[in-house]
């Protein structure tokens, strides 16, 4: 089963990198979001994946026995939320970029270039 999850993580990461390399900002954003998901699986697999029982200490018991690894879960939980926040920041920037440049293609965004050649201050390109 681990092999299946390994394959899943690899496919998700590979696909998201392919998307990130696109010049379309929304694709890039979705790729980043998916990359976070893929990496979360990798973190999950770095822990002990033997037991399917949640890491809850049973009523009456005082220590955790025979349960899934709690540590990667704690890491992933914050990672999901942070990844979510990152996706939203990218969405915000994408929206602003679209408003300012009327294009989603990073290759066509000229806002910085229109400020002029950095090696020749004072000269503006038309």
């Amino acid at each position, binding site marked *: *089963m*681990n*092999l299946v999850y*390994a*394959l*899943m993580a*690899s*496919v998700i990461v*590979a*696909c998201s*990198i392919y*998307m*990130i*390399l*696109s*010049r*379309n900002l*929304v*694709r890039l954003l*979705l790729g980043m*979001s998916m990359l976070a*998901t893929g990496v*979360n699986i*990798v973190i*999950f*697999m*770095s822990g002990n*994946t033997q037991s*399917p029982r*949640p*890491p*809850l*200490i*049973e009523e009456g*018991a005082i*220590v*955790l026995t025979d*349960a*899934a*690894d709690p*540590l990667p*879960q*704690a890491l992933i*939980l*914050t990672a999901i*939320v*942070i990844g*979510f*926040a*990152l996706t*939203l*920041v990218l969405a*915000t920037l*994408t*929206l602003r970029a*679209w408003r300012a440049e009327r294009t989603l293609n990073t*290759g066509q965004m000229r806002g*910085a*270039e229109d400020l002029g050649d950095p*090696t020749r201050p004072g000269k503006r390109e038309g």
Partner: protein
Amino acid sequence: MLIWLILIAFLGSCLAGPVSRAADRWAGWLLALLPAGLFVTLIKISPVMERGWVLGDGLNWAPYLDLYLTFRLDGFSFLMTLLITGVGTLVVIYSGAYLSEKSLKDRGRFFTLILLFMTAMLGAVLADNLIVMLVFWEATSILSFLLIGFDGRSARARRSALMSLYTTAAGGLALLAAILLIGQALGTYSLGEVRARADELAASPLIVPILAGLMIGAFTKSAQFPFHFWLPNAMQAPTPASAFLHSATMVKLGIYLLARFEPVIAAVPYGRWVLVTVGGATMLIAAFQALRAEGFKTALAYSTIASLGILVTLIGLTGPAASVAMVGFLFAHALYKAALFFCAGSVLHATGLQNLRALGGLIRLLPLTGVATVLASLSMAGLPPFFGFISKEFLFQAQLESTSALVSLAVIVLVNAAMVGVAAVITLRPFFMGRGKISEVKHGETPGLVMPPLVLALAGLFLSLDPAWVSSNVLRPAAVAVYGEAIEVKVHLWHGITPMLMLSFVVVIIGALIAWYWKSIHLRLRKSRVFEVVDFDRYFETTLETLHLLSARLTGLVQHGDLRTYLWVVFAAVTALLLFAWNAAGLMPRLPQVDALRPAPAVVALVGMAGALAAARARGLLTAMIATGLVGFAVAVGFMFNGAPDLALTQFTVEALIVVLLTALLLAVPLAAPPTRTNTERRFDALIATVIGVVLFVALVDMTSASHGGAISTFMGNQSYLAAKGHNVVNVILVDFRGFDTLGETVVIAMSAVLAWSLLGPRLREQVWSHERRSPFILQLTAPVFFWLLLITSLWILLRGHDQPGGGFIGGLVAALAFAMIALAHGLERARRTLRIHPVVVVGIGMFLALLSGFPGMQDGSAYLTHLWYEGDALKLSTTMVFDLGVYIVVLGGVLAFLFGLQRGAEK
């Protein structure tokens, strides 16, 4: 004491601005008290110097970095400090008169700079630690830059200032490299120790780069060929600065450095040869240029370069006489050259004319300046009874006693003759010849303009008539410090008929001839095309242009502006590193024990992979978003299957919110997304992605087959209930074991919310969004129900989080979902009204609660975020709840900031 000397000089320079404003016309005389006071203090310790002792002073600056603020005063430093403070005094007096027409502000600036420069010079010649010396050395370069470019409105001044800065700063870098290498080779930065261990350093394998760095540093500073071109340009500086920096003191720093390292240079077979050659080339070129020069100051500048060349040659010569001659000439040159610069400045000030051929007959208009010029020129020409004569005798003696070739002697004689010629020309032409060329002057002589050159010129006369004090207190200690052993220094005007005297005689005769035929020599040299070959100004310009061009090309290459290329460079580098690591770790991965394939999870995983592939291949953005969402849901289900209900819950909520939030974005942008990459680029990207995927797969297979120690997990599993009273280990880790980490992540969310609001939010306030959204009736009807259900659920999730799946993060997300329902059904305005408070304020409240929760536990001295517990019969209360509530509120506020911001931004 030495540190105090520098500190007082520094504090005094800082006060120069206000003092000069307050004293107005008398500023020069008043401020001169600072260098004069230092000069007198130094004179008072001359008995110590006479005995050949060395004064030391130091502070442990940063011992763990091997930095010691150590200073050292020996005979040679003493000579330098006397010149710096003595000439400095006169320069400050002269500046007061010279800058009388400048504005108060400009004058204050000039005094500040010139006194700061004096401080830096004192530091440089007193420092024992080489790094400390370098700091002061660089400070002199920067102050020189500021003084040359003092008239910032003149393009020529700016260009000259930059030229000198580039040249000397490049030399400073070379010197820094050399000093660091010395530290590597000897393990010390102390100048005294380096001199003592010169042979050891010369035997080091690093000696070639060390010497190269030292020499480049010294040659750039002291304007030696081929770096001499900046000095004539530096004459753009106001004349007092030229007199001080570019003839008497700063340009001698390179000489100072070389003299300090003479033992090291001498221990290397080619060391002396390099010095003699460079010095010889410099003085020859400079002598011709001095005859070719048209301006008063330019001629003086070239003659200064020639003198510096002579000094470098003298360091390269062997024998004690060379050290004596070097010290004597350095001293004599500072006296007469500074005086001549003062005179040149007065002429320039009075007439506004620079050109030697345009000047004439000034003796009647500027009589005292004329007298000073005559006296100083006689010293420069090396005629008895002036100090220049004594130093020239030493010079020839050193040359004759040294083991170097006759060529060098011939060069010295020729150059000295040229100096005699130049000395005669700059005296006779402006003052005595061409009577009537100038009939009136703009400004007459004032005491401040006349006193400094006269003092210096007369010093050159009286010190040679009674040389006992200066030779035993200044020159002998300096020569001993340079030579390293006790030597005899006999300073007399008359030594009898000696070969040196005969050489002086020859020099004066040739010099007189040069002066007589100056005009034709001058004009012929000006027409000569030879000097175009040695036009280093132009070479400098071309080099600079080439550098600019190269840097522009390089910038164009690495800063091309294509995001995709930046990213693939990153990913390609990651791939290369991964492949390298794989290769290093061994090519075959360990294989895990194959466990049973569970059908349901396997199908879910397949759905996830299909979603990923679909997202990558999708043409439209909507498809891509749905496919991405599919991946998220599949992974959430996967978490569910593998004992991670917390994660599953979080992932589900996040995916739901992403759909709501990104829909707002997709409403604003075009959904059709034509290809942005060429086919080749796609194939290339697919290749990179595939390689990373394959490497990751192999790594994961290898990883899962390794045993998992899990010591930390075990610890947390064991302590979760006992120490932190929680059944849900994941939540306990978040709020307690790793509470500080969680706090940091909460701050990240809070900051992203503030970012979102600053980018999208402010416009929200401008106009109230009037129209309500038209949404399906059924949604409108059920939305309030869902809202309250979700809100209550979120609170329940929050409260039970410590023992059951749930917690602040999940609760906050679910609560945000509740508001998203309202926004979907009734529009943004309704959702905002429901919230009542500004989302960023909500974030602030949450942050406040989370931060606050850490304090109560500190009362018994525990660390921040140590949680407290109250356990009653039916009720458990804890500060973790406050912490988790804070997280909940921050997440809620953060998501809502994005929700409102994005929806509003998309509507516009």
